[in-house]
């Protein structure tokens, strides 16, 4: 394979991996603090990107057209709204079920995801059709031997990686992060330390959902298209990524995200059979990985959380 082509695959893979990792980090954070899987995550992401799209339409009607202003407004409104939604979900659907069997939370959030998806399809104007998300980033490209590196892709990946690093710093270096990690390891002792448990859970869900909104906007800016079903597969893949990395471990989520992207790319291009088998291949490898490392690549030991 020539270098240019390889570069192109690598660039695509990194882009996908960044998005998957952002979704997976959310799963890992939620699992960390509350031992739950919030399956509506993908649809919350979709809602984030639709919020962004709505902001864009609103700005257009106000006559604001500076792309950087638009991006800033889209990001802020979408992330804040989605973060709040995440906290509301945690408060009213997840926390009340904390003592119920974990499967119930899985099912209730799955149903919530369906409800969100259906609501957008039915109640968003013309919601069942894909929407053209604006290309707001500069599209200049550099041709590097058969592989065109576009400015918008570079910016998106850089921003995505920055968000992941930022999240990591928040978790590992701040007082809030310390509280989140404490809650993740031992809820009761964390309370005894004077940590407002409910608040930390809500904040964690807000952070995770905000990250999903960011991934949603990133998705929109990159593919220039959003649709009501986009969250379903992204959520599923994010969940798988979080699991293969090892639930509750932020590095695991990142590793899992990039690994899944790599598997899909390899499945599509480097294997002898038809590219339609790439998902079969990727999910097959996931199953094999689980047989080999039943608790994920970065294994969760005793109470290794976040």
């Amino acid at each position, binding site marked *: 394979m020539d270098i240019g082509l390889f570069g192109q695959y690598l660039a695509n893979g990194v882009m996908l991996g960044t998005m998957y990792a952002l979704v997976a980090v959310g799963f890992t954070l939620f*699992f960390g603090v509350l031992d739950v*899987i919030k399956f509506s995550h993908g649809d919350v992401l979709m809602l984030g990107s639709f919020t962004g799209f709505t902001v864009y339409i609103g700005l257009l009607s106000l006559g604001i057209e500076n792309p950087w202003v638009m991006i800033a407004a889209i990001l802020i409104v979408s992330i804040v709204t989605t973060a709040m939604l995440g906290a509301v979900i945690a408060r009213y*659907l997840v926390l*009340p*079920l904390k003592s*119920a*069997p*974990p*499967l*119930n939370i*899985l*099912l*209730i959030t*799955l*149903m*919530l995801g*369906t*409800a969100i998806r*259906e*609501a957008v399809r*039915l109640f968003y104007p013309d919601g069942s059709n894909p929407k053209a998300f604006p290309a707001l980033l500069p599209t200049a490209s550099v041709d590097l031997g058969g592989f065109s590196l576009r400015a918008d892709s570079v910016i998106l990946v850089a921003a995505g990686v920055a968000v992941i690093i930022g999240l990591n710093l928040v978790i590992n270096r701040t007082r809030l992060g310390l509280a989140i990690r404490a809650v993740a390891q031992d809820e009761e002792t964390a309370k005894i330390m004077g940590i407002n448990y409910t608040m930390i859970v809500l904040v964690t869900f807000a952070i995770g959902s905000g990250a999903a909104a960011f991934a949603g906007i990133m998705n929109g800016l990159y593919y220039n298209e959003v649709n009501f079903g986009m969250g379903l597969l992204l959520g*599923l893949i994010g*969940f*798988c990524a979080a*699991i*293969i990395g090892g*639930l509750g471990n932020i590095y695991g989520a990142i590793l899992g995200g990039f690994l899944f992207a790599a598997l899909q790319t390899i499945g599509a291009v480097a294997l002898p059979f*038809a590219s*339609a*088998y790439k*998902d*079969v291949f990727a*999910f*097959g490898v*996931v*199953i*094999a990985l*689980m*047989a080999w490392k*039943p*608790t*994920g690549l970065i294994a969760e030991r005793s109470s290794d959380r976040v």
Partner: protein
Amino acid sequence: MQNKTNSDVRWMGMPALAVGLIVIVAIALFGWQFLLAESELAVLGMVALAAMAGVTLGKTGLQASMSAAMRGHARSMNIAILLALVSVIFLLGQEHFPLLMLTTTLLYMTVAFGLNVQFGLTGMVNFAGASFFGVGAYTAAVLTNHGAVPPLLILVAGGVLSALIGCLLIVPVVRTAGHYSAVVTIAFSVMFKTFLEVNDVLGGPQGLMVGPMKTFGWDFNSSPVFLGLEMSFYVNYALLGAGLAALAFMFVQRLERSWIGLTLDSVRLDETASACFGLNVVRAKVLAFTFGNVLVGVAGALYGMMISFIAPNSFSFSDSLLMVAIVLLGGMGSLWGTALAAVIVVILPEKLQIIQEYRFLLFSVVVILVLLFRPEGLIPRKVRSYFPNWRPE
């Protein structure tokens, strides 16, 4: 309540068995009319009626009477229920669609009984129910199309093949726990459907025709004549479906009450402790997983023959979710709860056709509400009773 003996539990002065029989007749009559109801007002009215009846009668002690009847007169009650079911099938005799719905419900019930062994008893998750259901249906398709395999054997083959395919997952499923094994089965579910679509050996995305069922010269797709009336050919499938569901119920209940059931329970509650007591945890898990998949596969084979056409789209991840929803809604490990939930999950969206594109939204909201307010499911599992009539003094 616990201290009373069975004969003490009375509702409106009637002995438990009488109450139980009356309730069964009432439910059968209601089900018969509900399956026939078509106008939206009738459907909504009947749903409201059922909900009201459920709430008010539960408060008047009917429930206690009912469970006393189930405990004290298990055999008579079970026979009565089966008789009621068969009567409903014959009452519906000529109504194709209600019979199709009823049979579908019975088959989903069978599936949910199978999944219940995995979820409810052993604590293993399986998000690939629809895939194993599909294995059964595809087995039926291939066997009816190629070669002259006796149909009852096809049902068995559906179960066996589903168990064999399940073996592919045994290693990762047994080694992992909780959310990790959820991912294994979810991945399998996605993989299975994509695989069917991508390759053309099994009909690809267009699907396959499934031949009808023929046993002892009795073509299941021809209409039986009963009391001089020509019945819907679905009567055949409904009867078989009822038999299958009853058999599955019996098997699972026996299993639950046996030593194996106790083993599965202890594996669910504490794997490490079970291993310390010398229980073979791996064997228990393999057994439960396989047993569940066999039931799912058999139901799938019958479903394929009844619906006569199958395609990968029918066995997607969201169908698996529907099956999991039945188990959780009913109450983990609770067979009667499962049966009730199967009725709700299969029939409600169908009866809600009237609200068309809004019904999935409504359905998901209903499930959320039930889980919020009845986290243990509609009819939570009771503590196992080995000797139904025996109570410690």
